[in-house]
């Protein structure tokens, strides 16, 4: 090896190497590794559903109804002869879509409202906290059923429900962090320097509150996946014939005396996804921010 060339990293000492180091620590934990593999599996299959699915997920073929698994139909078929493997792939795509979009929206809005409550005037804080408490006082599933009854079932309704119920969760965490940082010397230093409120919030507060929030949000993905599946199971979520793990489960439940496969095909991916995201989220939390455990629990 020549000793002449000096290695120069193009990355700043912060972000990238920290991410790689963090990932290594996550993978070293058995649960983290399992979680990561499961999450990767679900994500890849959801993104690549168009290529992996051997059949159209909504194509009805009554002659092939309730088949057992075979090379032709990897997971068998349901009561309408639809290929379960294809339906599971597309169902996963819907589940992830709902989870990522709605949690993403809730994180952005919760972040803004939380910082506003923590940093703004007292009365605004009181108003926002009252609103958060009101929303959170409804059990999520009851609130969801009520909204679906009012607005009618659709993918957007599910997302709306998730956004509305999750905003208070994120906003509260952000508000607490903001309040804790508000009186710290670096914020006072910024104020004395003449830094405006907007810049204080975005440059000085945001980087210090976003880490725990993202970990918290990643731990909520399984929760949202089950909400979507639950509502679809009750027939109040995704409209048929669009596949969803919840509606696959419901179909299988109605015909469970004829064939066990639809229930397994809908249930096992749901369980694995939920476990995968939970394992990954918990490992992320423990490696990056052990303090967060106390805030949440």
């Amino acid at each position, binding site marked *: 090896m020549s000793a002449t060339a000096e290695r120069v990293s193009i990355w*700043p*000492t*912060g972000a990238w190497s920290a991410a790689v180091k963090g990932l290594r620590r996550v993978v070293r934990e058995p649960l983290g590794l399992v979680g990561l593999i499961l999450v990767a599996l679900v994500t890849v299959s959801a993104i690549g559903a168009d290529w992996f699915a051997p059949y159209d997920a909504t194509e009805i073929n009554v002659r092939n109804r309730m088949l057992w698994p075979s090379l032709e139909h990897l997971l068998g078929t349901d009561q309408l002869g639809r290929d379960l493997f294809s339906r599971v792939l597309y169902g996963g795509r819907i589940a992830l879509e709902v989870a990522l979009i709605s949690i993403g929206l809730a994180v952005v809005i919760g972040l803004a409202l939380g910082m506003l409550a923590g940093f703004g005037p007292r009365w605004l804080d009181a108003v926002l906290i009252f609103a958060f408490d009101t929303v959170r006082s409804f059990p999520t599933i009851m609130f969801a059923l009520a909204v679906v009854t009012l607005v009618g079932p659709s993918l957007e309704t599910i997302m709306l429900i998730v956004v509305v119920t999750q905003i208070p969760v994120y906003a509260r965490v952000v508000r607490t962090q903001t309040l804790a940082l508000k009186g*710290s*010397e*670096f914020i*006072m*230093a*910024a*104020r*004395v*320097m*003449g*830094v*405006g409120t907007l*810049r204080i919030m975005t*440059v*000085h507060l945001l*980087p*210090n509150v976003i880490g725990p929030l993202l970990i918290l949000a990643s731990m909520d993905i399984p929760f949202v996946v089950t909400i979507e599946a639950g509502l679809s199971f009750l027939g109040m979520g995704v409209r048929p014939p669009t596949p969803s793990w919840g509606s696959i489960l419901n179909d299988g439940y109605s015909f469970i005396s004829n064939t066990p496969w639809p229930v397994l095909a809908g249930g096992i991916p749901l369980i694995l996804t939920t476990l995968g995201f939970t394992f990954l989220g918990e490992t992320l939390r423990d490696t990056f921010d052990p303090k967060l455990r106390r805030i949440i629990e």
Partner: protein
Amino acid sequence: MALLEVENLRVRFRVKGAVKSLVERDPDPFIDAVLNVSFTLEGGRTFGLVGESGCGKTTLARAIVGLLQAQRGTVRFSGQELLGLTDRQARPLRRQIAMMFQDPVGSLSPRLTVRSIITEPFKVHEPGRQDLEDDLQRLLSMVGLSPEFAARYPHQLSGGQARRVGVARALALNPKLIIADEPTAGLDVSVQGDILSLLARLQDDLGMAMLIISHNLHVVRHVTDRIGIMYLGRFVEQGRTEEVFAHPRHPYTHALLSANPKPDPDAVRDQVELLGEVPSLLARPAGCEFHTRCPFVSATCRTVAPNTIRLEGAHLFSCHHPRVASPDRAVLTGRG
């Protein structure tokens, strides 16, 4: 015209909520953290604020820069009133007054690099400026840090290095006044000396005035021109630094100086030892507020508040029984 004139400044804090004070029939649910404080600071000079923990030094500094609201009094900077300004009105003044906080690391934004921290004043007050790198390098070398510190984060700095970054940030816009709250807090003794001589050298070069808050008399003695001794939110004595150190009039000042260890173990001084603890701000003693701890207390002290007496050289103190012997002279007579 003095650079900074503070007159009869009073800062009070509410200690009970509106409802609780109503229920308990407490007509005065406030404490005065700073009470009728007046002093002036000339441009290019240094004023030291001295006192025990909780005496109101930091509160006074924060009220001057508007972080806390003062209830009464005036603070004039170059003749302009600072109290009651809106954020927008205060903005042009903010570049002329810089403040350094107690915690060297905690006063730097934890997720920003030293580069971003030191150049932030320019971004705020001179938006759109491009050539910040030159200023960054100039400021880093001014405080004795090498250029590679620009890429570090605050948690990667030692206390002394973080303090230097804080000094560089304070100097960025060439302020006329720097307020330093315990600039040596949390630093090793050798580093304390470095930071103090750095500040003194920079003051010689740049000519800014400084308001230094400290409970450390060594710090104050070597870098300040005038000092004010605070007790329970009031000035009990103020004057030129050498004069106050040589001839302290107030027993409290005398006691603080006696408590300061001298390197000569054989030195005999007329020591003043304080009695008891600092009283609560919730129940200020009647008469002279220092009487509960004063070894020279008399009946008058318990009932009558002393007037402020003015000696030449604007040496002010409030005491019925001022000390006349100087601690240094006492050392000499003790030996002879």
